[in-house]
């Protein structure tokens, strides 16, 4: 089951590695996060230049046809470098949704701009009280000519302040928790009657609270079938986030191991203490298992296997708990230094904490994993 990468995939990986090593070290990232916009358009253009933003899309829509495996390769490296630019939001989530349920006209109109790096996207699905349930939607949409008019509030929408376009879930029929009756809409982020309140996230990114007071939107996919589309979208997003987490876990393990071999206390390196050695072995095992599960999920996403959604929830949960364990221990073993903003360890900790919230936390997904079996 070990993925033996094709020449193309190896090339993709080594070129992402080279780019990030040259341009995205921890200091460069710190400057990007501290900049006014909070992300780098120059980096985004470099990603486009390298073909990363086109990698997963099918060739028929102008992509490179790399699918979920290319996403995995890219996101693992992004995780190692704590890349803040909205690759998941723009390419995997929004681009993936357009490719999956958009009309031919929408695909032709929207995906080339994503692949070229000229347009950024965000997905607005969370609401107050929806927690991680895709079907809990009160934002409403009513038909008006060829368009729809959306009213409601969306909360904690990642990357919205950076986005040119949003995909918004809104109810065209049914009640608050109904699975049916939710539809997806493409909305211009600068549209009239759309208010954004931006805020910084714990992992150095930007998000926003949205108020829609009669915002015009264009239907994406079939009316009333948005939840099913969002579920597949979430599976792909989980594939990407798991790869990002695995990248971060690997870096935390290397940093901790390295530190334990140099840091001296009681006249010896702390890595000579058995209690810490065993802790680092458990961190090593957690990384190995997370890596295996990540590959298994990406292969299942590539093959569109039956049961992939259950597996996605399982992986999100298991890798989430593993990530939390490793991040906790990495901070602990770095002692006071692990608490500082100066060291990268705390920033990996915060990114893993964010990943564990995005699209549902480990507790939510472990129960979804259990329930989907009962349903099967």
């Amino acid at each position, binding site marked *: *089951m*070990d993925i*033996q990468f094709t020449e193309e995939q190896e090339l993709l990986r080594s070129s992402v590695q080279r780019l990030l090593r040259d341009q995205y070290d921890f200091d460069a990232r710190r400057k990007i996060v501290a900049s006014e916009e909070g992300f780098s358009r120059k980096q985004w253009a470099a990603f486009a230049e390298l073909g990363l933003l086109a990698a997963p899309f099918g060739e028929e829509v102008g992509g490179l046809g790399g699918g979920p495996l290319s996403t995995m390769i890219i996101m693992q490296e992004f995780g190692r470098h704590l890349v803040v630019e909205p690759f998941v939001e723009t390419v995997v989530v929004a681009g993936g949704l357009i490719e999956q349920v958009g009309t031919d006209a929408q695909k032709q109109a929207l995906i080339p701009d994503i692949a070229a790096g000229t347009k950024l996207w965000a997905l607005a699905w969370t609401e107050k009280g929806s927690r991680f349930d895709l079907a809990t939607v009160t934002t409403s949409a009513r038909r008006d000519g060829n368009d729809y008019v959306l009213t409601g509030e969306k909360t904690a929408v990642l990357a919205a302040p950076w986005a040119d376009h949003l995909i918004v879930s809104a109810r065209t029929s049914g009640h608050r928790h109904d699975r049916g009756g939710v539809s997806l809409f493409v909305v211009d982020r600068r549209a009239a009657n759309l208010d954004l309140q931006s805020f910084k996230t714990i992992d150095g990114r930007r998000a926003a609270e949205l108020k829609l007071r009669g915002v015009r939107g264009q239907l994406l996919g079939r009316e009333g079938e948005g939840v099913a589309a969002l579920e597949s979208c979430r599976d792909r997003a989980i594939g990407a986030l798991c790869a990002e987490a695995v990248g971060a876990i690997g870096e935390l393990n290397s940093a901790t*191991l390295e530190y*334990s*071999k140099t840091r001296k206390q009681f006249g010896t390196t702390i*890595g*000579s203490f*058995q209690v810490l*050695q*065993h802790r*680092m*072995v*458990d961190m*090593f*095992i957690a990384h*190995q*298992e*997370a*890596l*295996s*599960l990540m*590959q*298994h999920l990406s292969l299942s996403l590539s093959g569109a296997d039956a049961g992939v959604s259950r597996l996605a929830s*399982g992986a999100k*949960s*298991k890798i989430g*708990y593993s990530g939390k364990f490793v991040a906790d221990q990495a901070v602990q073993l770095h002692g006071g230094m692990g608490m500082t903003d100066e060291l990268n360890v705390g920033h990996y900790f915060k990114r893993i904490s964010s990943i564990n919230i995005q699209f549902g936390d480990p*507790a939510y997904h*472990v*129960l979804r*994993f*259990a329930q989907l079996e009962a349903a099967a």
Partner: protein
Amino acid sequence: MELALSPEDAAFRDEVRAFIKDNYPAEMRVPNPETDLSKEQMLLWHRILHKRGWIAPLWPKEYGGPGWSITRRFIFEQETTRAGTMPPLAFSVTMVGPVIYTFGSDAQKNKFLPRILSGEDWWCQGYSEPGSGSDLATVRTKAVRDGDHYIVNGHKTWTTLAQHADWIFCLVRTDPAAKPQSGISFLLIDMKSPGVTVRPIITIDGSHEVNDVFLENVRVPAENLIGEENKGWTYAKFLLGNERTSMAGIGRSTRYIERLKRIVKAEIPEDDPAHLEFIRDIARVELDVLALEATELRVVAQMARGIDPGPAASLFKIRGTEIFQDITELTHRAIGNYGLAIREHPVSANHFMPGPDYGHTASEKYLNSRKLSIYGGSNEIQRNIIAKAVLGL
């Protein structure tokens, strides 16, 4: 989860699956095969596999192995464990056999290997002593050369199924002056020799698996020495390496999880506040198995390409045993009040055992599986191995 198989390997898998279905002895399907079967019953499947030429997957063809690729060995392991068959005695087939064909003399190979394959000889392992557990290099059982013989005196313990054994392979000290690892030899001893005494040790589950073995002035022909005198530690380590890779126990854990789910469904109503906790705990252990299985498949695929996992394989022993302990604990909790009861040993239909059949072995399995993190190199030793050999600590 399945390995991507070539058509030939897929056909082989189907062949193995069908063979098990048609040939696995019904009388070996007892509530707890590890403790409920007689020696003769345990050997039934061994003999069937021998006849088919499948008894020793690890062995090279020249010594009677089937000559399988790594992938086929894995498929066989996967199919036999998934089907819940009783594996052939590891001490004979997986442990001492490879030591004999790797380090033994031609005479030893000719004498012992055919009898291991046929099941004629039953082997047990004389490693641990009262003073040598995880610190195996401190063995004190002494072998002193006396002409064509060694005179052996000592006390081996935790000797699994020694009560059935024809032979014991022992670590003995032949050079008391040397450093601990360098004065040890690897000696094969006939259990029928005068001076060998076996005393049962009953474990907390009430079963008799392990024993003390006392060796008092036992005369062992010098021709029963494996390899060179004082090189036994090398052979012992080689053997332990063979033991570790097969310890993920995915097939067994998967079967026990399915059983656990059925028990929870039958025993715990959905409005019981504990129900959700069980659902969550089962899902988490199921994901632990999935992650370990994915790791095993990744390593098998690597091995098929010639990449050896090396000491990282210790993680399979660590996680495989921890997972199985979790599952048996959950199962014991799931049967609720009947978790107070335990079957009496030796097992007999005449003993009263309360509660539904599916719960009858829950207590003993829960208790018995505490051993898993202790034996075969305790999990702490395995962590030491990874820390040193993989992490460079």
